[in-house]
């Protein structure tokens, strides 16, 4: 067997190194920005995302364009994900030479399997969208491990995703025609129309609140826990003078155990749940039978027209 593995060329290696640098660089930039802009303060600080820059358009503050920490971090995360996937798919070959190609293939297979299982064959093109949402959500939540402000604990970011999903849902509901869409509100009884209308808008709201509430409550609990531990160590070491009692020794270790649940497990679980709900809602919105029926009807009409026109 001629199974020798070719050494990658120099150009290939340089491109690889550029990808790896571009993966890490945005996160390092975010950390530096975070350190530079954090105001020196002590005690519990549970606030929303800090605002880096505000463009005043005149009028009410509501209409100002605000560049906040959450937006900047989510853009940085997007750049990182972009280069992670470029790195994984760099040097794809039919006969696998690189280990990373196995990983890339596993990801694609798993996502395609998940989409095929939950959405059916009509939506097999949805794989890239689902993995994009899943990766963005998971990486955004995991940035809290680096000490960055996780973008998913800002309502605005998650609400943006939820609105995007809502637009796709509405698009698939409108596929069978606007009249059929409006008629869907009066089912099963006409009186239930207002409630159906409300529940239509409850989907994006509940998706956004679920993701935001889970990630943010984890962050709040972590801050409260570490503050409590600092207070406790100050209490225990109070006899040793000002300088020693300011060292929060109890903060070593215990917050890390909670972080495994709140940051890693909860973040990844919420990403999975968000993607699952996206899949189920989109595939539930599309009435395949009605669409087929309409398509057939249209084709028959066209045929009749053609025959009539031909004659």
């Amino acid at each position: 067997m001629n199974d020798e593995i070719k050494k990658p060329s120099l150009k290939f290696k340089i491109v690889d190194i550029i990808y790896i640098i571009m993966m890490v660089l945005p996160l390092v930039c975010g950390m530096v920005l975070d350190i530079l802009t954090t105001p020196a303060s002590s005690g519990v600080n549970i606030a929303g995302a800090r605002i880096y820059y505000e463009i005043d358009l005149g009028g009410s503050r509501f209409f100002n364009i605000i560049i906040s920490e959450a937006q900047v971090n989510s853009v940085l995360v997007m750049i990182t994900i972009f280069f992670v996937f470029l790195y994984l798919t760099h040097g794809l070959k039919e006969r696998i030479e690189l280990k990373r190609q196995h990983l890339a293939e596993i990801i694609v297979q798993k996502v395609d399997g998940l989409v095929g299982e939950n959405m059916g064959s009509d939506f097999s093109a949805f794989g890239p969208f689902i993995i994009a949402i899943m990766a963005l959500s998971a990486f955004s939540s995991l940035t809290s491990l680096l000490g960055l402000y996780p973008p998913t604990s800002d309502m605005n970011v998650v609400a943006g995703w939820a609105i995007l999903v809502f637009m796709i849902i509405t698009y698939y509901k409108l596929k069978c025609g606007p009249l059929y869409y409006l008629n869907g509100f009066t089912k099963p009884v006409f009186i239930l129309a207002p409630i159906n209308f409300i529940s239509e808008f409850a989907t994006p709201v509940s998706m956004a609140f679920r993701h935001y509430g889970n990630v943010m409550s984890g962050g709040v609990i972590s801050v409260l826990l570490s503050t409590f531990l600092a207070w406790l160590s100050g209490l225990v070491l109070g006899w040793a003078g000002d300088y020693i009692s300011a060292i929060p020794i109890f903060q070593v270790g215990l917050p890390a155990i909670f972080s495994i649940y709140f940051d890693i497990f909860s973040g990844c679980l919420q990403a999975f749940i968000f993607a699952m709900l996206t899949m189920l809602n989109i595939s539930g919105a599309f009435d395949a039978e009605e669409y087929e029926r309409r398509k057939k009807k249209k084709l028959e009409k066209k045929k009749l027209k053609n025959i009539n026109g031909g004659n």
Partner: protein
Amino acid sequence: MELAIGIILGCCALGAGIAMIAGIGPGIGEGQAVAKACEAIGRQPESKGAVTTTMIMGCAIAETTGLYALVIAILLIFVAPQQFVNVLTSAMGK
């Protein structure tokens, strides 16, 4: 004035605490869901994957009401007092 601000802060904190009573509901519901999922896996161990996925989805949906309460509690603690005090001071200033 101080008394009014004190009442506002106290009522906001009380309201946040009362709002979190809603946590009981999701707790019971998720417990039921997990118990039934354990039973199902015990009866049919080969369907573990499907049961676990469905259970996690169900738990996530059952959790929503609790999270609504959480969001309201957090708004009451971190956002509402400031707003109410602003309203009060602007009303007193007139």
